[in-house]
């Protein structure tokens, strides 16, 4: 029961503010609603006992990436933001695409609900309660099984950093 209340609380915030983020005219408002979504998602991670991902989400996503976004919006945002037409012309295409995707996933859920034991078995699978809920487990996995991807990710970040500096630097 408590689990359910917490989940629906965070899920409601996440979906509601994601919808607002897509529809707000002002980019800063969009960013604020995206922050709300990310924080709610962090709450869901915490409910899933993924404490480390929770704090990484908050430090990196919210405290790092979103600050960067807001910084750039402030640098770039002319006062014209309020005068613009919000949506591009292809909004009908978007509607069709999303409707098709929704229908697809809805069909999946529907068939699973209709035929228990068939179709998409994971939806009804019982959770296993043997995950050690701590940062040490993630660290051990990260530095043993996934050491090579970890190093590649660090190289990726380095490349991105250099790329961003080169890109944003004024040509003199």
């Amino acid at each position, binding site marked *: 029961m408590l*689990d*359910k209340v917490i*989940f629906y609380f965070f*899920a409601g915030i*996440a*979906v509601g503010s*994601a919808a607002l983020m*897509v529809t707000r005219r002002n*980019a800063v408002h969009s*960013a604020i609603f995206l922050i709300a979504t*990310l924080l709610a998602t962090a709450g869901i*991670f915490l409910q*899933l*006992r*993924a404490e480390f*991902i929770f704090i990484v989400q908050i430090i*990196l*996503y919210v405290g790092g*990436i979103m600050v*960067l*976004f807001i910084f*750039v*919006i402030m*640098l*770039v945002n002319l006062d014209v933001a309020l005068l*613009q037409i919000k*949506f*591009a*012309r*292809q*909004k009908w295409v*978007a509607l069709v*695409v*999303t409707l098709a*995707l*929704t229908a697809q*996933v809805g069909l999946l859920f529907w068939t699973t609900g209709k035929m228990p034991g068939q179709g998409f078995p994971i939806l*009804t*699978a019982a*959770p*296993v*309660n*043997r*995950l050690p809920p701590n940062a040490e*487990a*993630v660290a051990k*996995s990260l530095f043993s*099984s*996934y050491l090579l991807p*970890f190093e590649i*990710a660090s190289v990726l*970040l380095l*490349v*991105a950093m250099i*790329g*961003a*500096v080169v*890109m*944003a630097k*004024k040509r003199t």
Partner: protein
Amino acid sequence: MLPIGHYLFLSMALFLLGVIGVITRRNVIVVLMSIELILNAVNINLVAFSRLYGDVAGQVFALFIIADAAAEAAVGLGIIIAFFRNRETVLADEMDLLKW
């Protein structure tokens, strides 16, 4: 833990909202933010399955995705700033020349 379907459904909803944002918005910065939303939806799935199977690998991949999102945001915003210096706009519709 609730049945995994709840988490998958939430993830799907966020993913679709992100897709709508990417396709419809004109402001490139908001498009980038929608992409972040999509990546975040994927993360929910990974962490939920990590809990379901009691395997920490899902969380490790969520970490990689967050690192990837950081790299993408840095480069993307760098491009946007460079573009804004040259063309004084951040609207996707007006980015219609390959070279100038």
